[in-house]
């Protein structure tokens, strides 16, 4: 793990601001995009890309609908060009809504939920000296496949997996607590499956990294990152409509002005 101090955390915060700003900018070029879930994952992906991911490691975004966030980060890290990023969903582009295998920096084609953790298990068992960082949504916990992976990974002692659950509490249509009141507590479920499990504020990089530090060598790690969909834009937060929507011009300006104050 890279050095964490006041200075590096301040820089990290600046990057989170820039990622969100860029997503807002790109939202004005397409009819709709998954802005709510992207904004809830910013600090999780920032922690992984800026502090955790080493050259030999791999990262899989299982909640593929927030691919736009990954593309923005890949562009920031100079893995994909600005031109390629701006071709997002444009005519004849190779860059669509969901991450596609074969594009630079993308390890798997995701977008159908409940696949990424299983693919990660294969990558991790195939090369035990690398670490696998996986981000799934809490909505993916409704897929049966997720629980097959959870049981298999701990049983086969695939301990080089770091799982981050973006627990924003919403699925595409509504609040998860409405359709699945027993989805929580998530921590207890993974514990019962033999994982080392932590819960943290998913919008605080320092908290995410502290949780990662607690991982023992003999267990896979699952961190429940408590987040807010649409964070930090007030009109987006916890509003299901913002799962897949582009802000109009007025909403765009409002979001930008709010962010400038928020990150001051």
């Amino acid at each position, binding site marked *: 793990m890279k050095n964490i101090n006041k200075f590096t955390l301040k820089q990290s915060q600046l990057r989170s601001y820039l990622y969100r700003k860029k997503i807002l900018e790109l939202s004005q070029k*397409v009819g709709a995009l998954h802005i709510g879930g992207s904004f809830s994952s910013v600090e999780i992906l920032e922690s992984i890309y800026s502090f955790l991911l080493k050259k030999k490691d791999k990262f899989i975004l299982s909640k*593929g609908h927030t691919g736009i966030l990954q593309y923005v980060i890949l562009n920031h890290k100079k893995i994909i060009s600005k031109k390629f990023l701006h071709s997002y*969903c*444009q*005519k*004849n*582009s*190779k*860059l*669509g*809504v*969901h991450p*596609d295998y*074969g594009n630079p920096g993308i390890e798997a*084609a*995701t*977008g*159908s*939920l*409940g696949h990424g953790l299983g693919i990660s298990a294969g990558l991790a068992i195939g090369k035990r000296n690398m670490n696998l960082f996986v981000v799934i949504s809490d*909505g*993916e916990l*409704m*897929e*049966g496949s997720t629980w097959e992976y959870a049981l298999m990974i701990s049983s086969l002692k695939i301990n080089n997996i770091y799982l981050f659950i973006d627990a924003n509490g919403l*699925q*595409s*249509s*509504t609040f*998860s607590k409405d*359709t*699945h009141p027993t989805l929580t507590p998530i921590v207890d479920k993974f514990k019962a499956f033999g994982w080392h499990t932590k819960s943290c504020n998913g919008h605080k990089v320092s908290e995410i990294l502290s949780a990662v530090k607690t991982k023992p060598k003999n267990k896979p790690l699952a961190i429940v990152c408590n987040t807010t969909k649409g964070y930090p834009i007030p009109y987006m937060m916890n509003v*299901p409509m913002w799962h897949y929507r582009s802000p109009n011009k007025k909403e765009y300006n409002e979001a930008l002005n709010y962010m400038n104050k928020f990150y001051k």
Partner: protein
Amino acid sequence: MRNKFAEVLYKISKKNKKIRVVAADISPAGKMAELSKKYPDRFINVGVAESSMISMCAGLAMHGFKPFAYTIASFALFRPFEMVRIDIGYQNLPVVIVGMGAGTVYSTLGGTHITPEDVSVVRCLPNFKVLVPCDSKELASMLIYLCKNNKSPCYLRIGKSGEKDYSDKSNDKWEIGKPRIILDGKKDICLVASGPIIRFYFSIIKELKKKKIFPTIISYHTLKPLNDINNYKFFKKFKSIITLEDISEINGLSQIIKGMCYDHNYRGLLFSFALKDKNIKNYGTQDDLLKDHGITAKNIYNKILSFNKKINSKKTN
């Protein structure tokens, strides 16, 4: 089409207490929201759990309900495929799997969300009906039929939103298994399509008129079961047939028509526009994706002109 789906089911639900809509994380909008409010036990959102959606529909059908499993086509069919095959297909239960936004509709969402091969795989399953309405009016007729008469599994392949209606001007009523004349023209050129992609034919109809070509346009809405002999009687009167679909060239409309023509020794001209057997790796509008597979209004137009020329030269000879 999804609005029409909701509207018709809501209307039928008022009289038919057996209707159940089991959705996988589709938010009930419009009439579906009304249905879920008025009859809360008739709209079940299982969440992001498609396998559960299919198995649950099987259980409901065993009680005599009329379940509709409803979500984006890719997740309605591919993800829970074994549940589709065994729970519904093998047990021969009257569950309708509604694949919404099928084919290349979700053109910017990529390979995980587009379904060129849905018809190809589901047609292999014994007992399954495969229905592909060309517009929302045709969809309405199908839903009325399915709620009233259907006793076996069905895959209902629909679009999403904004499709134009063409069939309302047709004098030919919808009937399962019977190719339907949407535009009655001459017998030289027969344009056959499955699904809302029929719009390509209508987009060039004025241009064809200028060239004094008056094709007949057919909605081939039932891709299974097939009434081969009756269908051939219908098609044999045409001098040429062009097929058009937003479905894989393997086991879709084109192969049905080609097989029928081969079996009955059809002597006319035949050409197919279908999705090629390759993954779609580019993004853009639906038309951009189709273009990559050779499906454009211009290509169809040119093919019609070349067929017309051949037919006319035969006539003069």
